[in-house]
Structures are given as structure tokens and as C-alpha cells.
């Protein structure tokens, strides 16, 4: 049987979709409220730094950022195909590259906090 990256990409898509559905709207509300000039206590430098410095915080932040990136990359690929763009290889390359580089950068910055 030919090897395929489909199961891997699809499971990242599904996991990312579930994580995004569960946590992202609430997170958007938190950063939105910071946008109105009064960051909630959790976004204070000391608090968020302490969170991202601990291993649990790192795992949580990594899971959210990386899975959302892979979810978006895969779904934008199917969306562009659905819209009629027939350049799947290029779309896949660009999308998965952004997700891959984003994943590596997330690890890099988490390790520096």
C-alpha cells in the first residue's frame, strides 16, 4: 500500500478543530477585552509569564497554537479546492509550511520564556 500523510494530517485537523471549538471563543473574549484598554488580570506580565514558564502552561499553549495552525492549514486547503482553485500541491505546500514553521517557532519561544 502506498504511504500517505492523510491520516496524520487529518487527525491534526480533527484534534485542532475540537481544541479550537472548546477554547478559542473564550480566549478571543479575553484578548478582546484587553483591546478595550483594560487587560484582565491574567494578561498581566507577571501572571502570564509565570504561566508560560511552567511546563503545564507550555504544554497548553503549545497544544492550542500548533493544533489550531494545523487545523486551519488543512481546512483552508479544502476551502480553496471547494472554491475552484486547482493548485492543490502549491496550496498544501504553503499551508503546511506555515503550520510547520509556526509549530517550530512556538516551541522556540516557549523555551525562551
Amino acid at each position, binding site marked *: 500500500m502506498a504511504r500517505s500523510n492523510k491520516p496524520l494530517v487529518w487527525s491534526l485537523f480533527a484534534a485542532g478543530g475540537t481544541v479550537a471549538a472548546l477554547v478559542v471563543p473564550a480566549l478571543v473574549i479575553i484578548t*478582546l477585552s484587553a483591546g478595550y484598554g*483594560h487587560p484582565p488580570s491574567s494578561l498581566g506580565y507577571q501572571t502570564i509569564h509565570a504561566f508560560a514558564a511552567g511546563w503545564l502552561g507550555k504544554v497548553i499553549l503549545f497544544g492550542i497554537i500548533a493544533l489550531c495552525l494545523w487545523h486551519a492549514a488543512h481546512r483552508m486547503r479544502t476551502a480553496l479546492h471547494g472554491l475552484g482553485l486547482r493548485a492543490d500541491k502549491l496550496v498544501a505546500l504553503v499551508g503546511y509550511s506555515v503550520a510547520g514553521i*509556526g509549530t517550530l517557532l512556538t516551541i522556540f519561544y516557549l523555551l525562551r520564556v
Partner: protein
Amino acid sequence: MNGKPYIREIPVFSWYLGRKRDIHHMLNEVSSLFIGSYALLLLWGLKALSEGEAAYSLFLQGLTSPVSIGLHWLMLAFTLLHSISWFSVTPKAMPVQIGENFLPGYFIAAGHYVAWFCISLFILYIGGVFSYG
């Protein structure tokens, strides 16, 4: 047979505008663009956090820009749409069989909505959104 096949013209960027179901499908697909944008925003914040307090307060200041606020409202609308429709298909994605029978689909979907509600409340609570004086 005159040998000339009929090819139906399908407008590339607007074919889905005719039917409600297709519009809904396309909006759901587009929600991923906003989920991806939000992940990049978090990554940007994480970069600032790793660079120290000055860079991080610049990031917080950037959140107050009109572009950021407009994008946030769009992200909120599309991620809410994503959550609602993602959980609505869970009965099909993960049917639960008990003996001979299947658990009714609305139990599975409802379980996910309840979990989403509780997790969101928890995040907003520890996020400090409720503690404004």
C-alpha cells in the same frame, strides 16, 4: 450523438451563493482562516512575552488598535460559528453504541455543548474577565 459534450459552467468564486446549505458550508470553511489568524496572534504574543516586559506591553498596546478590535469581533463571530457547527456533527463523527442500540444523537451533541460551556466559563473565570470592579 453530435460528439460535443455538454459542459455546465460553474462560476468559480460564487457557486455556493445559491443555496443556504452551500453558504453555510463555505462560512464554516472560512472559519478556519480566523482560527489560524488567532493562532498566529497568540504566537506573536508569545514572541513578545519571550522578549521581556517592554515588548510584551507593546503587544498589549497593539491589541487596542482598531484593526485588532475589528479582527477580534470577526474572529469571535467565526469561532462561535465553528464551535456550534463542529459540535453539531459530533453524533455522526462519534456515535455511541450501547448494546444493540445507539445513544440518541442529541445526547452526544448536548454533552459537547455542556462541556464547551463549562470550559469557556472556566477560562473566562481564570482569565479574570469576571473580576472587573
